[in-house]
């Protein structure tokens, strides 16, 4: 059942030339330190890129690029591969000229410079961010071939910033009347989203400037973005310029025209922010070819917008029988969790699935269970169990099962 032949490591009588003939790098002098003051991946890693899905959007400035989940390890997404979602293009803003304003139901509206925000006490937290439309192309049927396109509007970083509640308190927020906060960006779309005060009061909503140890990348909102753990990415407003405290939600374009979940009865669910518990196998996954029969470590990612992942189960027979997978620690709140299961592939077709359970007891549904309640036209919040078919040839395909 071997598909593409792997570089053979089989010994010729004497042995493998890659061993017997010492390579150049074993016999020479390499490159100096600080050849790159800021380094980059190996030249053999150029296939690992974020990509657009052809035909998905009509413009490239109101569009998305997907993270290559099929090639990532652990839980941290390299910032250069973080998925992108822009509504009116991205900018590289001069931080010395950027300001943050707080207004609305506060004693005194305030203005902060980036210098000032970076002087305040900060916290750093590992969090996942998932677009509400992630896996949205697959609500009705299989539409795209690989996990990059099915689940790649997902990334995970260590974010650093100031709890928004600190800034609101500095402005003298009215926490009695002020039950909603409007977050607004400084880009052309001036993206606006209504943020629940309950989350803000918990301290977990951050006005962030740091991502994986350095400043946010321009594509991800440099110099300031909101971090709203567990909530869909569109609420993580980039190029953040203003926060307004109010007593009503704002019904902004992306909460009154998009990011609405269409139900079978024709109503739209509005203000549906939470990314419910979900998981996906990333290795092996669609568009890949297993090189051989034998042992494989099935691995993937699980997450929940409601807290920690408690369990992940894996099935190799399309959901009939399941085994508990190993969870990779540390298992963190509203953060990706990697799971693994040992598997010996016997060369017969197999249907691989993963199913996550979070600490609230919520169990990730299969398509039948999900569609029974929500139909198949929602676009948003598709957290169904993903199936990969391993064919006898070793080729892995994206499928949906009955």
């Amino acid at each position, binding site marked *: 059942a071997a598909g593409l032949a792997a570089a053979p490591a089989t010994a010729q009588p004497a042995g493998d030339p890659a061993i017997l003939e010492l390579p150049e790098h074993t016999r020479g002098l390499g490159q100096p330190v600080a050849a790159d003051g800021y380094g980059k991946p190996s030249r053999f890693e150029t296939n690992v890129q974020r990509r657009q899905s052809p035909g998905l959007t009509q*413009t490239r400035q109101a569009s998305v690029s997907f993270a290559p989940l099929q090639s990532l390890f652990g839980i941290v997404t390299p910032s250069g591969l973080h998925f992108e979602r822009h509504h009116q293009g991205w900018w590289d803003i001069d931080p010395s000229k950027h300001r943050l304003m707080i207004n609305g139901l506060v004693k*005194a509206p305030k203005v902060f410079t980036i210098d000032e925000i970076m002087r305040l006490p900060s916290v750093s937290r590992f969090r996942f961010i998932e677009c509400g439309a992630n896996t949205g192309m697959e609500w009705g049927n299989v539409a795209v071939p*690989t996990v990059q396109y099915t689940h790649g509007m997902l990334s995970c970083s260590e974010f650093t910033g100031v709890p928004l509640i600190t800034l609101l308190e500095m402005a003298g927020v009215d926490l009695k009347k002020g039950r909603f906060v409007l977050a607004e960006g400084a880009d052309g779309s001036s993206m606006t989203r209504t943020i629940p005060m309950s989350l803000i009061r918990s301290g977990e909503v951050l006005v962030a400037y740091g991502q994986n140890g350095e400043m946010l990348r321009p594509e991800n909102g440099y110099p300031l973005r909101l971090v709203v753990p567990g909530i869909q990415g569109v609420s993580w407003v980039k190029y953040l310029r203003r926060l307004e405290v109010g007593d009503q939600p704002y019904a902004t374009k992306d909460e009154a025209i998009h990011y609405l979940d269409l139900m079978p009865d024709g109503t739209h669910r509005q203000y549906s922010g*939470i990314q419910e518990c979900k998981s996906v196998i990333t290795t092996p996954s669609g568009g890949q070819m297993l090189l051989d029969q034998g042992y494989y470590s099935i691995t993937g990612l699980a997450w929940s917008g409601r807290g920690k992942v408690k369990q992940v189960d894996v099935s190799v027979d399309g959901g009939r029988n399941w085994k508990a997978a190993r969870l990779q620690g540390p298992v963190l709140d509203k953060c990706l969790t990697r799971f693994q299961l040992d598997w010996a592939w016997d060369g017969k077709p197999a249907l691989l699935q993963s199913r996550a359970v979070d600490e609230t007891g919520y169990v990730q549904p299969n398509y039948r269970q999900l569609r029974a309640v929500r139909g198949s036209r929602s676009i948003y919040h598709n957290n169904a169990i993903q199936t990969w078919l391993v064919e006898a040839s070793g080729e892995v395909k994206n499928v949906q099962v009955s």
Partner: protein
Amino acid sequence: QDNRFPGIGRNATPAEVAAWDIDVRPDFKGLPPGAGSVARGQEVWEAKCASCHGVFGESNQVFNPLIGGTSPDDARTGRVQRLVEPGYPGRTTMMKLATVSTLWDYINRAMPWNAPKSLSVEEVYAVTGYMLHLAQVVDDKFVLSDRNIADVQKRMPNRNGMTTKHALWPGQELGGTARPDVRAARCMSDCPVEAKVASFLPDHARDAHGNLAEQNRPVGPQRGVVTQRPVAA
């Protein structure tokens, strides 16, 4: 204000707040006074919008169509009938929109796409009115203004089409439900599934996303599938 962090931050001036506080809420808080006619709106539309959205808002060149799919009957009931029909292809902006404030706010902040915040208040009123006219919500003599916009709201085709009765908002602020709508069980063996492949990509679409061999690392437990071969092969 608290004083834990002296010297950090300062009060905003009224002019500063005015410069940035542009949002318009469903109750029209934030809406500046002003007015604009459908006729003026047509001029604005054809000069500044139609190139992307089509003369009747029907184009999906750069985005989903804005207009279409609503009926005068919807304006009466406040529910867009076509949203119930699973067979109807696509959803226009006007089919979904429940709050006219959203339209005003968004055009004011973000359109034209390549020159956001370039419209005058009158132009925003006018072009919003024109779009409402294209959607048969107002007639061609209408002059949309801060004083009559609340009446227009009462005729929005999908004004009764939204619900917050769900568990996807984290707090209690919107009267949602605490219990998730989809409830699966953690069945471990002999689970009630058919496990038959019901949907897959047709073979001719294998290369619709390019050559997958080039989208996977050339080393590791597997390779990407070669979906494109040189013409010669």
